């Protein structure tokens, strides 16, 4: 799992609170400030969309496992029992970890059984999961 927003913000605070050593001033200190700003931007993006992305992903994983699982010995109830709890990022991540473990088992079983239909469905879901999780930062135009 990528660091949580709390961990990222704690890193920002630690970076800003730590007095630079004499050799860390100048270019390095300026780069640390720029990096802190970029990480704050990531945290803002994650706070804005992180819950929605996780709720969507967990629902999509549940639906796929419930539909395809029985073909490969996985009872549909296994995924349905995993709930999103109080919808905090921590609860959603905990559910996500369990659902991802199940879909990995399902995917391996589908590959071994040469079940191309389920294999393709899972791969398509992976692409969409990655697309939704991606965080977009604007590129920087260098100063001429």
């Amino acid at each position, binding site marked *: 799992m990528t660091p949580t927003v709390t961990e990222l913000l704690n890193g920002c605070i*630690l970076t800003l609170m730590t007095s630079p050593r004499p*050799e860390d001033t100048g270019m390095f200190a300026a780069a640390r400030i720029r990096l802190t700003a970029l990480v704050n931007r990531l945290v803002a993006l994650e706070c804005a969309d992180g819950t929605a992305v996780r709720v969507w992903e967990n629902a999509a994983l549940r639906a796929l496992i419930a539909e395809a699982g029985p073909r490969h010995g996985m009872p549909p109830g296994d995924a349905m029992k995993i709930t999103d709890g109080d919808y905090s990022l921590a609860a959603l991540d905990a559910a996500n970890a369990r659902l991802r473990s199940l879909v990995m088992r399902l995917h391996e079983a589908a590959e071994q059984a040469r079940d191309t239909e389920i*294999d393709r469905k899972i*791969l398509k879901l*992976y692409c969409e*999961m990655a697309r939704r999780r991606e*965080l977009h930062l604007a590129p920087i135009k*260098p100063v001429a």
Partner: protein
Amino acid sequence: MSSATSCDALDQRLERYLGRQWGEKVAVRELTRIPGGASRETYRFDAEVGGQVKGMILRRDPVGGLIDTDRQTEFLAYRSFHGIVPVPEPLTLEPEGGALERPFFIMSRIDGGQVPSVMNLDPYGEHAATIGRELFAILGRIARCDPATLPIKHCCAAPTLVECWREALDYWASVIERDERHPQPIAHAAIRRLRRNPPKPAKKISVVHGDYRSGNFMHDGNGKILAVLDWEMAHLGDAVEDLAWCFDPLWNHFDDARVAGTIPEAEAIAIWEHESGLRVDPATLAWWKLFSAVKGCAIWTTSAKEFIADGSDLLLGFTGTYTARRHDRIMADRLTQLVEEGWS
């Protein structure tokens, strides 16, 4: 001479160390840490000795690092290619690191260059094509060299031609297994597929830079590459590994039409083939491209783990988040495409 204590400033320790090395009094001036890179701390400084000023770079192991690399490998890689391709001259290596608390090495400094961030848009401007041609010509020259004739042979074992891919994949897959905190189904699916659809054996064993890409070379702003840097992941293997890594969209500066933000992929391959004397098999290149995404995933998985454990190096938090997710998407898209094209 007294040994260094942790209270001594870094510049004073360097003065004592270099004084012992050169047998003369040395003054260290303008010691400044350079940003970028999470696997080693990098500093620039001037060493004044015998009335002369020498520009130098210090590379010191961090307290915790992104990649567990052997500084001897990096040092010997610089030694191997100094005079063959543009690299700084390596000067001294201290694997124990007592003088500066942690292992380090020192090399000559090349001034007047610039290294763009991967976040930069069109960083090479009107010189992009010139730089791209030189970038892939240099990579071809690295691939052409016989590792058995180079100092790096003393620290890197050569895999067999048929085992290059497996050794590389086993290594990075084990890093993911070791460091992941959250199940990564895309990475594991890619690893399984890479194992089921291996590439052809390597044409020869070459030195693989390991992180050859935009952002790891210095250019003069007028179309000339001054130095290829950051050899800490150097090893022996299939040279196509470097080509695929350099082609990864992560390093293309948001420009899907030009690899490394420089030239089209077909032109880069033609230049590389001419310089290396090797041919690139498209299926082999496709395998190494997906492998590159897995390797990236492994590196960012480790950076996330290190950041969460310590929290002091924010760059690890950034790469463990932003870069990790970009590579996940690249990996998912590549994997799906290869399966659609017939991978079992």
